[in-house]
């Protein structure tokens, strides 16, 4: 087939309209979410004292941090799905969750504490946290990558890494309602480590799957 013939063929297909990447990503996430929800409710479930916990600002802060991460990563993912886009101008969005967490740590430092700092940091559920967040995020990560394949990222590994953050953010939102460790020090340590793991998986998968 010579190039003129190819051009003619592409023009004949001009009527085909692809859906925007945002739409594909939303559909894929909606398809993946029930899997993670099922895993969460069969294996973990919401902590029994949730009504009391909600009155603790540090419990609520966990959701602010994880949701800020998820939403920022969704915005950055969609931006990076355009081939001419770079992180410049958008990367700072990912600093919002880190900023919230830092403010939380500062807030906790200023309050009188019964438990020593290292004990709060180590918590009681670090191993569960490091297992549950990555496992809960895998179905979401798969969905996110399927949705983002619709785009054309110039740097597939970077786009995959952000997809990893997105899925870790959503998975951590679920996990946060189960976990009884509310100290921002715990979140900053173990949630961050889990997120880093999922981000690395996302980068690896993205470098293969998000090439176009």
């Amino acid at each position: 087939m010579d190039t003129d013939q190819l051009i003619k063929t592409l023009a004949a297909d001009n009527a085909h309209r692809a859906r925007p990447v945002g739409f594909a990503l939303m559909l894929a996430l909606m398809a993946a979410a029930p899997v993670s929800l099922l895993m969460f409710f069969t294996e973990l479930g919401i902590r029994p004292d949730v009504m009391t916990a909600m009155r603790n600002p540090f419990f609520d802060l966990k959701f602010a941090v994880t949701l800020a991460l998820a939403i920022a990563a969704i915005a950055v993912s969609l931006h990076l799905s355009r081939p001419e886009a770079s992180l410049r101008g958008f990367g700072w969005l990912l600093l919002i969750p880190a900023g919230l967490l830092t403010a939380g740590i500062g807030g906790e430092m200023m309050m009188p504490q019964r438990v020593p700092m290292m004990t709060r940091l180590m918590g009681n559920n670090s191993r569960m946290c490091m297992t549950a967040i990555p496992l809960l995020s895998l179905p979401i990560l798969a969905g996110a990558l399927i949705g983002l394949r619709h785009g054309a990222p110039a740097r597939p590994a970077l786009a995959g890494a952000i997809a990893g953050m997105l899925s870790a953010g959503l998975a951590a939102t679920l996990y946060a309602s189960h976990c009884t460790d509310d100290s921002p020090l715990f979140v900053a340590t173990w949630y961050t480590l889990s997120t880093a793991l999922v981000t690395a998986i996302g980068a690896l998968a993205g470098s293969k799957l998000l090439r176009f």
Partner: protein
Amino acid sequence: MREREDEWTGLMRSAISGESTAYHRLLKAVTPVLRAAARRGLTRAGQPVDQSEDIVQDILLAVHLKRHTWDVSAPFAPWLFAIARNKLIDALRRRGRRVFVNIDDFAEVLPGEAPVETASAGEVAAQLASLPARQRDVLQSIAVESASIKDTAAKLAMSEGAVRVALHRGLTSLTAKLREQ
């Protein structure tokens, strides 16, 4: 230069709103620029330039299948060159070289550069043979025999809708095969 790129943007906007003739004109207009850049990239990587047409076709397919990622309110050229650069780097890497491609390679066609005639391209044609029969027949009819969608439908005893679907699927699987080879 500026005028040319504004013209591309205008043509692409018309194409998106459904004008196939504008789309055809746009693809025709960008092809020589892509070809010149592909040849320059190959030369710099010490590769024979006779493979440039495979790269051009690869870029055109990606432009077609990813055009929904172009923001209609933005100029078209930066988007096009980003796609082209990505595909050129991929192609050179596949041929075993790690090279840096300068974005300016696309932006300028050097003055005295002789226009290059369409060279032969083998990769798309080779992958065409491995497509499912339906898709291959439809692509063959439209590309090689220059039949319209309507004529193709009549000839293959398919509905026009089915021809459109087979055409789009065929282009998508061609692109996937080129990427995986």
